[in-house]
């Protein structure tokens, strides 16, 4: 029984691709057969985040147009033999693919994989329509900023209008120090406003930037973020995992020796 999950956000730059790469890696680490599909045609990115940019021969559009077989376009991950990438085309645009073709592709991938993760482009135009066409679940990524939350709310509305109602929220780049002094909306504020069940909270961590620089996703590695990504994966598998305490400990001793 496989699942097709779209990672989306509306606004660009909130961490969709990084989130998709890490959840894909995490699910693979948990022994699931996973394919990550980069649906951002014309702006290929997922390959570099995964460190697989030098292995691309065929892409998503080649598969859809029948220039190659699906198997030829799938790139096996460096670390996990059960993780694959279907890269996007860099020299084409969003109109090269239709939602119906994407649906068909997802059905095809379902035969081979436990999880199909679709990395959605920013915006609400055709690229978004294509990405959500075959999905049965959506992960909406937002940061605790007004612009990102506004766009996330719009996206949630559009997903519901397309009858995609299994929606989970991921709050990315949370800074507890700012939340504590009242200068950032808290997890509760954001989830209250968007009224969608929460599945993950990611602290703002420089490790994420470093990992992206190296093309090595963090999921499963030691550290707060690696654990947070892995927790999301466990929750996707239906396990109850409490949210980590990202809070800096109270009291002077806690402040000095916290974490």
């Amino acid at each position, binding site marked *: 029984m496989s699942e097709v999950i779209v990672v989306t956000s509306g606004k660009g730059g909130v961490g969709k691709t990084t989130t998709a790469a890490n959840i894909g890696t995490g699910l693979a680490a948990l022994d699931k057969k996973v394919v990550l599909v980069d649906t951002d045609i014309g702006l290929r990115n997922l390959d570099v985040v995964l460190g697989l940019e030098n292995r691309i021969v065929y892409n998503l559009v080649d598969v859809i147009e029948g220039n190659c077989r699906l198997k030829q376009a799938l790139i096996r991950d460096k670390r996990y033999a059960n993780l694959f990438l279907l890269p996007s085309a860099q020299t084409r645009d969003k109109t090269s693919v239709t939602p119906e073709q994407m649906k068909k592709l997802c059905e095809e991938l379902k035969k081979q994989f436990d999880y199909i993760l679709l990395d959605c482009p920013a915006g609400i135009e055709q690229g978004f329509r294509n990405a959500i066409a075959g999905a049965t679940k959506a992960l909406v990524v937002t940061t605790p900023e007004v612009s990102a939350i506004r766009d996330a*709310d*719009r996206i949630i509305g559009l997903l519901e209008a397309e009858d995609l109602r299994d929606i989970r929220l991921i709050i990315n780049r949370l800074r507890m120090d700012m939340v504590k*002094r009242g200068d*950032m*909306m808290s997890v509760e504020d954001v989830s209250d*406003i968007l009224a969608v069940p929460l599945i993950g909270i990611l602290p703002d961590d420089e490790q994420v930037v470093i990992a992206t620089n190296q093309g090595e996703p963090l999921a499963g590695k030691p550290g707060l973020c690696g654990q947070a990504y892995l927790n999301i994966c466990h929750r996707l598998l239906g396990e109850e995992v409490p949210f980590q305490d990202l809070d800096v400990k109270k009291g002077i001793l806690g402040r000095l020796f916290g974490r």
Partner: protein
Amino acid sequence: MSIFGKKRKASGTIAKDRLKLLLISDRVSCSPQTMQMLKNDMIKAAGKYIPVDAGKVTICFHQSPPVLTADIPLKSRKDTGS
């Protein structure tokens, strides 16, 4: 907020309040101006039949299920003098 006496509303709260207002109009694709016009029309309509306390009327949208709620306080008997 500050012990030095300079009072500042936490920017997180400002963000939350601004968003709440913004999303109400986004969700029903109805601008704040349109909301005001709708409110005025409702006051006028209700006021034709019953004495309405126009200053205290509030209208708001709820998300799921989507409902428009109008809270229209009426003028008490001593206000109307009847």
